């Protein structure tokens, strides 16, 4: 059974048209992450939620926002997509990441591939 679900798997949007990607998890994990992965590159962390606490990476553009209405769901909003935002967007979860539990593992969804026309 899928544990981290991302919808849709493929999303096409137009330049400047807002788009929302969704992620849900059945693991009841505290932490949810959003990564951006461009072709032939490693995933790059955009932000994460620890429960309801939002943590933004310093170099994440303001164009990217996130919402976590409850434990199971997390959304990535791109307010005005540019051509450079075309990428695979990966959602991941982990039970915790505090130092005492740093052996925790991240579980990834299958990703949403975003195309910007």
């Amino acid at each position, binding site marked *: 059974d899928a544990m981290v679900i991302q919808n849709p798997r493929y999303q096409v949007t137009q330049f400047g048209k807002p788009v929302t990607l969704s992620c849900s998890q059945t693991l009841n994990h505290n932490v949810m992450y959003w990564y951006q992965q461009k072709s032939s590159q*490693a995933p790059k962390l955009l932000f994460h939620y620890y429960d309801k606490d939002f943590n933004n990476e310093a170099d994440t553009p303001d164009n990217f926002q996130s919402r976590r209405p409850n434990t199971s769901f997390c959304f990535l909003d791109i307010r005005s997509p540019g051509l450079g935002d075309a990428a695979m967007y990966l959602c991941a979860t982990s039970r915790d990441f505090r130092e005492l539990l740093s052996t925790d593992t991240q579980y*990834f969804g299958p990703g949403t591939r975003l195309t910007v026309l």
Partner: protein
Amino acid sequence: TQLLEQSPQFLSIQEGENLTVYCNSSSVFSSLQWYRQEPGEGPVLLVTVVTGGEVKKLKRLTFQFGDARKDSSLHITAAQPGDTGLYLCAGAPGGQNFVFGPGTRLSVLP
């Protein structure tokens, strides 16, 4: 500066050959994870290594964590085309966020 370095960046071998890929850092990691990612899919966890010097085996894959917990290696015996993919190491140094290495892209030719 990358916290995690991986080598080689690309590797193309024939089916049946053995190979080793490396993950190195100047930082100490309490654990490291290895993932394999196939095109168009999310990374899939292969293993987590926790103890310095630890060796874990997963069928034809052998993972080793360095004694100082700054490096790790993945050895594949008798590679098969199904092993093709991007191999990523990742970890959280000192309780910080997870970081990924740049990956090794492996191609196993039949």
